[in-house]
């Protein structure tokens, strides 16, 4: 089977997020009030051939741990997603 997987990479709790902080500071000037806890991160999308959902997610988690994220400062989470029709 082929599974569409999304990996979200976010900064670990307690690690400074200058990008998120800068975005948050910019929002009031654009008229968006009441927005807090803005965090910047990355998301990666991929199709994975695997026996099962679990196997696909396990593979995504493994490659996220090895390459997509730096475990010193980032967390990675894999989830199944819907491929946008092209």
């Amino acid at each position, binding site marked *: 089977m082929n599974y569409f997987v999304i990996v979200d990479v976010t900064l670990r709790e307690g690690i*400074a997020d*200058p990008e998120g902080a800068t975005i948050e500071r910019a929002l009031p000037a654009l008229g968006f009030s009441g927005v807090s806890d803005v965090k910047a991160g990355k998301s990666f999308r991929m199709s994975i051939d695997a026996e099962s959902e679990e196997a696909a997610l396990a593979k995504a988690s493994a490659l996220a741990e090895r390459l997509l994220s730096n475990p*010193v400062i980032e967390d990675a989470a894999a989830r199944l997603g819907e491929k946008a029709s092209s």
Partner: protein
Amino acid sequence: MNRVGVVVFPGSNCEYDAVLAMETLGTTAELVWHSVTDLSGYDGIILPGGFAHGDYLRPGALARFSPVMDAVRSFANDGGPVLGICNGFQVLTEAGLLPGALQKNIGLTFLCQPTTLVVTSQRSVLTSGAQIDQELVVPINHFSGSYTCDDETYQGLRDNDQIVLRYKSNPNGSRDDIAGIANERGNVVGLMPHPERAMSTLLGSADGRVLLESFVAAHVAA
């Protein structure tokens, strides 16, 4: 030190500065392409500044998988002097040869300016010839130079005297003003500032010399 290898990744751009600095100090330096897997014959290795593999994903994230990095790891484990400058520092942290990580600068500003560094440890191949509290003017040139690590790692760095250089005035948000660190053994050092660009008063500062002279004087541990 007779022969220094300066590793060139696709996207490195300070390799010639590093070679020139080594030659200025009377040693031989050669460029080493990142696909090389044998570093025997070199007495020291420099990972220069630049944007290895385009800095895609994260600075150093792809460079750490370049074939040469296994050889760099072996070289370091054998006690060989390894110096990572700027992007080279980022590569060393991603490769796990130095602890912690370099994050985007506070304020998200690319910084290109002279900075004053303070020598805080002589227990490394880069600072053995400098004096504690000695101030050195050395330029920085980076976007991701904010050193970060967890509390346990930080305590380890302090306990083992691994913080070798600090900024006098913190430009980028680095934890505890850290500009450069060494591994426990002191033979692997990474720093964000560019000592190879501070080799001549005519060009602003010659304060990088004392650091690189220490590196050149370092011997491969028996």
